[in-house]
């Protein structure tokens, strides 16, 4: 079950940064179609790490959809300093 707050965090970030309509940020949406390139993905991961106090492992499979990305984030244990 996807955590709604992580989807909200993602859509808020994309709205602020790229002016992407939150309605377009659905689990099925492809990152490529949202024009999330490798640099923006790095920033997204950083944002999640910062806001949630988690650490992304180095060996993650590059996500293709919003759902892929959120599955990675949802699966991480929240750190002590969150």
């Amino acid at each position, binding site marked *: 079950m996807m955590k709604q707050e992580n989807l909200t965090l993602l859509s808020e970030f994309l709205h602020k*940064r*790229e*002016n992407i309509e939150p309605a377009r940020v659905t689990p099925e949406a492809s990152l490529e179609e949202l024009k999330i390139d490798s640099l923006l993905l*790095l*920033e997204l991961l*950083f944002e999640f790490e910062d806001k949630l106090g988690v650490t992304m492992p180095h060996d993650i499979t590059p996500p293709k959809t919003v759902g892929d990305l959120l599955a990675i984030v949802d699966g991480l244990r929240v750190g002590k300093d969150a």
Partner: protein
Amino acid sequence: MASARRVAVTGLGLVNPFGGDLADFFGRMLRGESAIRLFTREDKATRPLAVPAVRCASFDAEAALGRSLPFTMDRYSQLGTTAALSAWLDAGLPRTKDAPRNDWGVSWGTALGGTLTFESGYMDLLRNGRERVPPLSVVLGMSNAAASHISIQLGLGASSTTYTVACASSAVAIGEVLSKIRSGEATLMVVGGSEAPLSYGVVRAWEAMRVLAGGDETSAARACRPFSSDRQGLVLGEGAGAMILEDWDHAVGRGARIYAEFAGYGSTSDHDHLVRPNVEGQMRAMRMAIQDGGLTPDEIDYINAHGTATREGDPIEIAAIRGVFGPRSDAVAVSATKSMHGHMLGATGVIEAIITVMSLASQEAPPTAHLDEVDRDCTGVRHITGGPLRGSLRAALSNSFAFGGSNTVLAFRAAH
């Protein structure tokens, strides 16, 4: 031997502290108007800072570049890309990426690159106790980032290079493309430079060298007084400038407005001392630019001096000018516009080159501001003071002499 192609200046753009366009900026230069203000900075992390400086306070990156792009740029790239887009528009060039532009390129200058990014990263690591920095730190901070952004935005497929030659960076970036266009290797080049040096650490470093002019709220505007008997040093500034340099026939073919001809380039090294300038090295650079441009010293009617207002530097430049122009020195008009726009380090060469080109195009050259009494060791040339010089200006030089002993001189010829 086939004759080399001539090089036309067909577009000018800048981001300047007055916040207006090129015509507004140049008008203020002609009137001797200073952009220097007291720059203050105070936060919990650092000791209070108050020093005369030049800031582009009204610059709005989002308005100039859109929502997303500024996030991927240090301020020096934001200023630089904005100046380049402005020069592009000024040259009447279309913003389409469809046409192949593999013989169009960019040549940029910056002395410090993304120094604000570095400082913020160090603050996070060393002061705030974090163990990581934002993921774009590398691509924000790198010194060729501005050039890269410009070539991406404008679809330029020829070389994209960046020169770091301290205070001559953008003058070198301009000069080095002359042979590329003459030879036909490139048809059109976007050239210039940008600098955003007002980080806490950079200002403190310049203070430590004891070359910064002091001042308060009231006196800051007059803080930089090149060639004056009471000069007291330089003023740091941020800004950016860009020119479109183009194969002359190409420019004529597309009906472009030609501001001036970029005629000659001189580049020498003092091979002498890290910071003390050298008369002979500067003379060689001026002579080289004049000769390279097919000019004679008699045709040079205006020199935009390096003129930083340091005790040591100004008299050496005047001695070098007198050495090159001999008995005619009295007739050679000279001004140091840093008295108004400050020293923009890697961007200052192009800002002064733009002023030089505008002087030839309008047949009016700006004064050195605040020059009430020429110092005895700076006499012997025709200092422009009080207001603009109007008259027949056939050709002009723009001098840039960098710490490290790199001397760069650009020679421009009036287009008509």
